[in-house]
């Protein structure tokens, strides 16, 4: 078929689709030129969640494979090879060779396939993803908060594989899975969807189990965890410096050395029978960078009083602007995939209060299809921030209905080891850090602005994040709801 005939066929598609595209086309104010700022801004974020289970000692366990040290690797997760992003082919920048074309097509097909594979897979887990964010972000109490719902989802999914009975069932119910097979399937698809190592974006969800070298563990379960959840399993002497050192090394490797402030203190006590560690590492560049020369020093009105902060600024930008009853929001895109939502509560609403607002999560879910949206010229001013937090998840998870894995009378971890009979999860903590910055420099004016979230904006909007705000890192596909991180910035 000729291209013009195909284009002619485009003229015959539903008028409803054309009308919708026509409407959004007219709504979006045209600019005579594209934004001049392009480039990089690095974002790195990672989170660690760990649970420790206390139990008595057991028998010697022969390692499946041995290293030279006393730490043995029982099962190894093998991450998939991902095609590399090809700049000339996918963006039209530079000359494109046949090799570029082949690589570009391969990358594109990979992305399409994993998106299709994961489409709709978090819908059943949406309540958990949203409710856990509501719970842990609203608890910031004037401090910074960072929470990764997808990290918690993965950690609990791995925990469900090691559990049986009511403990497992409660996790399945909380995560919206009808069975362990369904959860395994969904978690595997989501892992594959989130995973990125294409030279453009790095996103790796890591899982590992740290087992006692004097206990026996079910090899099939460990292999299933490696195959379905990309979970590696290690065996060593609990409480030994060598084992702790290996664990820290694994955590630092998985999180790109970004969480050393927290991992330096990680220890497995001699009484621990199982350590389950899940990590998320995410690193991406802004689709359009901030210029450092546009930065300004300004005042951030934190709950404890005004503090000086360095603000990154944009002017003369056309972008999507969203609003709800109590907030206004914009989304900064990363190169290729994903975005960071920046959400400013109305003046009379705290970030913590807004974190409990279901409408906010509706925005994250609906994204581009959010109805209260316009396309004004936006002047953005955002403080550079580097926020981290360690969150105790146990109490919150109990509020979400996961109670029995913490109760030694009810917990059952025998699918992993008969010797875990009577063991219970002692604690689940999550440590997370999110940082945004830019590179470059200039100056721009800092303008304070006020607006009402529920009112439609004028053609020009100044979006000044000079008081506590929320951020969320999500995927930008409407087919897969993937909230990687959420946070409250009370102190940039």
């Amino acid at each position: 078929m000729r291209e013009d005939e195909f284009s002619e066929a485009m003229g015959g598609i539903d008028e409803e689709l054309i009308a919708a595209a026509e409407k959004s086309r007219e709504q979006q104010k045209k600019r005579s030129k594209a934004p001049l700022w392009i480039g990089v801004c690095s974002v790195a974020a990672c989170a660690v969640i760990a649970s420790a289970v206390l139990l008595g000692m057991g028998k010697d366990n022969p390692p499946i494979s041995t290293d030279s040290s006393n730490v043995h690797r029982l099962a190894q997760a093998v991450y998939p090879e991902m095609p590399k992003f090809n700049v000339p082919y996918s963006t039209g920048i530079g000359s494109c060779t046949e090799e570029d074309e082949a690589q570009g097509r391969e990358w594109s097909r990979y992305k399409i396939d994993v998106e299709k594979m994961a489409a709709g897979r978090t819908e059943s887990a949406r309540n958990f993803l949203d409710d856990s964010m509501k719970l842990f972000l609203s608890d910031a109490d004037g401090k910074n908060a960072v929470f990764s719902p997808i990290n918690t989802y993965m950690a609990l999914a791995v925990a469900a594989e090691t559990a049986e009975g009511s403990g497992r069932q409660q996790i399945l119910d909380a995560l919206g899975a009808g069975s362990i097979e369904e959860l395994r399937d969904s978690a595997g698809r989501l892992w594959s969807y989130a995973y990125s190592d294409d030279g453009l974006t790095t996103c790796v969800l890591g899982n590992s189990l740290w087992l006692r070298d004097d206990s026996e563990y079910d090899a099939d379960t460990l292999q299933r965890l490696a195959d379905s959840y990309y979970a590696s399993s290690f065996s060593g002497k609990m409480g030994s410096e060598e084992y702790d050192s290996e664990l820290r090394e694994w955590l630092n490797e998985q999180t790109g050395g970004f969480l050393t402030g927290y991992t330096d203190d990680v220890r497995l006590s001699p009484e621990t029978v199982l350590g389950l560690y899940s990590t998320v590492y995410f690193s991406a560049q802004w689709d359009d960078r901030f210029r450092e020369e546009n930065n300004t020093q300004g005042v951030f009105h934190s709950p404890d009083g005004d503090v000086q902060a360095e603000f990154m600024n944009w002017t003369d930008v056309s972008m999507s602007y969203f609003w709800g009853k109590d907030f206004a929001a914009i989304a900064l895109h990363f190169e290729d995939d994903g975005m960071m939502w920046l959400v400013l509560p109305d003046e009379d609403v705290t970030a913590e209060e807004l974190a409990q607002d279901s409408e906010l999560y509706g925005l994250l879910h609906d994204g581009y299809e959010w109805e209260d949206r316009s396309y004004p010229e936006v002047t953005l001013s955002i403080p550079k921030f580097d926020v981290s937090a360690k969150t105790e998840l146990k109490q919150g998870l109990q509020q979400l209905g996961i109670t029995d894995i913490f109760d030694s009378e009810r917990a059952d971890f025998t699918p992993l080891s008969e010797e875990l009979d009577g063991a219970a999860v002692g604690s689940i903590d999550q440590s997370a850090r999110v940082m945004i910055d830019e590179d470059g420099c200039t100056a721009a004016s800092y303008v304070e602005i006020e607006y009402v979230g529920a009112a439609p904006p004028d053609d020009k909007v100044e979006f000044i994040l000079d008081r506590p705000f929320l951020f969320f890192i999500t995927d930008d596909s409407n087919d897969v709801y993937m909230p990687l991180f959420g946070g409250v910035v009370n102190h940039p």
Partner: protein
Amino acid sequence: MNDSDIVALYWSRDEAAVRETQQKYQGYLMKIACNILYNREDGQEAVNDTYMKAWNAMPPHKPDLLSVFLGRITRQLSIDRWRGMTREKRGGGEFSLSLDELSDVVSGQDDAERSFEMSQLSECIGTYLRGISAEKRDVFLWRYYFCDPIRDIAARRGESEAKIKSMLFRVREGLKQHLEKEGFAL
């Protein structure tokens, strides 16, 4: 004047219908025509022909969405006119550039023994577009239905041209796979 009043004028055979249409939709239709024809005079002729065709079509037609109805006529007339141009005159426009991009999806060869109706193909394209995000769908239609320049789309959305190209590329690839799966040998 609202669309239903304009349509009523056509139905009552009132020549004010054309004047009102021109007043309301001239700019919109010229944009479609000029994106395809890359020439203001040719575009103006296609738009004038649109008014004539609309006059002849209403009645019996009573479009719910007058803008889409008129835009479709302009688009088809412009494509027909583009086909009648010499190769030299065709070059350079956004329509030609968008067709180059669509070579990802089709073979580019004449297919005398086509095994499907164009309406089936249109329906299948529509089905695919309904299955992707509104964001991607809009960008795709802006480019391949309205033939908007990529730089305009990028500026409109406040995103880089590279991002728009990458997005379009992936939608084309997805569409191609969908059409192949549905049995369209293009």
